[in-house]
């Protein structure tokens, strides 16, 4: 009896903690990070510092929107870093001939084709999403190296820099792009039937198929959208560097997955959190900024992101265990 009682109390506390974490966890992390950075660096509370941190956070955040959809639908995409690189090199190669707007459209279209192939392989050929997108990452990276013969391609049109480094109404353009995409993806996920279908497929695929949803189409759409977000980031980063880089964004996929899961999207599928992804992106960017302040080498960033991922997974694992139990027993907290 005594032990049961203890156990129930522990469970109850755990459920309350997790519910609270779901609501405000990421904000607490950001506040703690800010306090730390404010102490460490006198320049932290300046508009351009904060803007630059948020801008850095948009890269992962934007692709995390796509990844939220993929994970909500019960899948994954590990090919996003290669898609960023592919966009970058196609953009740099076509800008001289096509002009900036057409080159951007073309490079985004090519990336969406990669997403389409991912979707077809996963749905039509039944290949595991992990294996498909991991293989696609290798193939796409190979193609990016092949069409540039491994070289980096400089871009001479300096007006192209506006997308990555310019400001509109005093706000950096990448942040505006992220806000626009956030609104689009938010409406898509929560206000349209496609969004509901994506959640339905992620919660229970066979039930969705039986109730008449076109699971194949929905899944292909999801992978196209992931590739789309990745290509947007490819455009932004190419614009900042003014150079097409076939080896762009190594390890970016890990950052995106970390942001997605830290942002509260459940790995078990069916439940996505877009706003969480925005703030998780900013938090990761704060870590990078902090590590740069200390002046350590880039591999400490790898270590930090890896550790944050394990932490986020740990919380997600706890959530899966306790909130499920709470739901079954009808505990409210």
């Amino acid at each position, binding site marked *: 009896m005594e032990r049961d009682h203890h156990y129930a109390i522990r469970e109850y506390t755990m459920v309350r903690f997790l519910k609270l974490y779901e609501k405000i966890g990421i904000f607490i992390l950001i506040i703690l990070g800010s306090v730390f950075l404010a102490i460490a660096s006198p320049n932290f509370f300046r508009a351009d510092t904060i803007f630059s941190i948020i801008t850095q956070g948009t890269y992962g955040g934007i692709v995390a929107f796509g990844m939220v959809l993929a994970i909500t639908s019960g899948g994954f995409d590990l090919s996003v870093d290669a898609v960023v690189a592919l966009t970058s090199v196609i953009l740099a190669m076509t800008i001289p001939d096509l002009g900036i707007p057409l080159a951007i459209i073309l490079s985004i279209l090519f990336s969406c084709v990669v997403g389409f192939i991912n979707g077809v392989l996963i749905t039509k050929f039944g290949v595991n999403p992990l294996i*498909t997108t991991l293989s696609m990452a290798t193939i796409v990276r190979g193609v990016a190296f092949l069409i540039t013969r491994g070289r980096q391609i400089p871009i001479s049109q300096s007006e192209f820099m506006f997308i990555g480094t310019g400001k509109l109404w005093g706000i950096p353009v990448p942040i505006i792009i992220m806000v626009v995409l956030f609104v689009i993806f938010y409406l898509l996920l929560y206000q349209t039937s496609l969004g509901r279908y994506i959640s339905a497929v992620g919660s229970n695929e066979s039930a969705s198929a039986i109730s008449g949803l076109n699971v194949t189409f929905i899944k292909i759409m999801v992978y196209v959208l992931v590739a789309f977000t990745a290509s947007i980031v490819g455009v932004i980063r190419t614009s900042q560097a003014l150079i097409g880089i076939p080896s762009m964004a190594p390890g970016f996929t890990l950052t995106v997955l970390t942001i997605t899961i830290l942002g509260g999207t459940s790995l078990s599928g069916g439940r996505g959190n877009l706003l969480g992804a925005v703030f998780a992106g900013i938090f990761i960017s704060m870590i990078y900024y902090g590590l740069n302040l200390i002046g350590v080498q880039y591999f400490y960033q790898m270590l930090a992101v890896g550790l944050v991922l394990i932490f986020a997974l740990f919380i997600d694992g706890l959530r*899966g265990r306790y909130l499920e139990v709470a739901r079954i027993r009808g505990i409210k907290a």
Partner: protein
Amino acid sequence: MVDERSRKIKHKAGELWGNFGLPFIFIIVLIVFSVQSPIFVSWRNLLSTMGFSSYIAIGAIGMTFIIMTGNFDISIGSMLALVAVLGSSFIPRIGGVLGVISTIILAALLGLINGLFVTKLRIPAFITTLGMLFIFRALAFIYTDNYPVYIDNRFWLFIGNGKIFNIPFPIFITAVCYIAAYLVLRRSPLGRYVVAVGTNSRAAELSGINVDNIKIFAFTFAGFFVGIAAVINTATMGAANPGLLGQNYEFQVITAVVLGGTLLGGGNGSLGGALIAAMIITFLGNGMGLLQVGSYWQLIVTGLVMIIAVSLNKLKFYLLGQGDL
């Protein structure tokens, strides 16, 4: 009647593919490259490439166990780099023999950590090990400050470069590892538990098998073999480079296991298939190198081989009537 006949024909085709498909592909690869390149077909090249294939083949043993139990480990490339730089840096203090042993034990420990994370925290394996992939690699960089560790210990170097009767020593190690793993998988209760967990983990649990422990065992076992592969690989290179070691290793090894006929998502597996598949992959790389195919094309080919391998596997199980397309 027609249904019954077509089912039988399909089953026959599936069986044929299952038994002879891989050796057939292997022979085709050998013939194609022999026609294209005279160097390829020399004994010297064939034997040394066999030796190099031990790198993938030995890693594939443990991965077969992990995939059979329905998991993945994509951290093994970084794990290989981390234990290699650790173990080889111990050599001046504890000598070559103990250095090799400590490398293997460390790798098994890292595998154990992966297994504990996956089972006890109930985090999906591939994403845990994706995190570990970066953590291990970062630790390897941090430990060495991005400088390679040079190895001049004779015992360590012999493991990768030594020859007995002109046959590269890694071939003997591979043979011993495969025989041992075969005995564990097919002749011990532990192996039967692994198969049971892979085919139906719920049923295995109900019949009193501790599923978590079996999965942890698979990860630890895989780490053990990664340790052996780490010693062989660094010995052939003469140095342990924290950035270059084990790049794409997880990819090659998973391709070998899948091409070898182990079904993704768990189930029974094939060690022999993994061995032949590892040789196919290595000979493909060697042949493309000799024909001076660009490394970018090689990237594309490895990706395609992986996707084709998974599709072929699906086709085989469909033909055998054990799954749908």
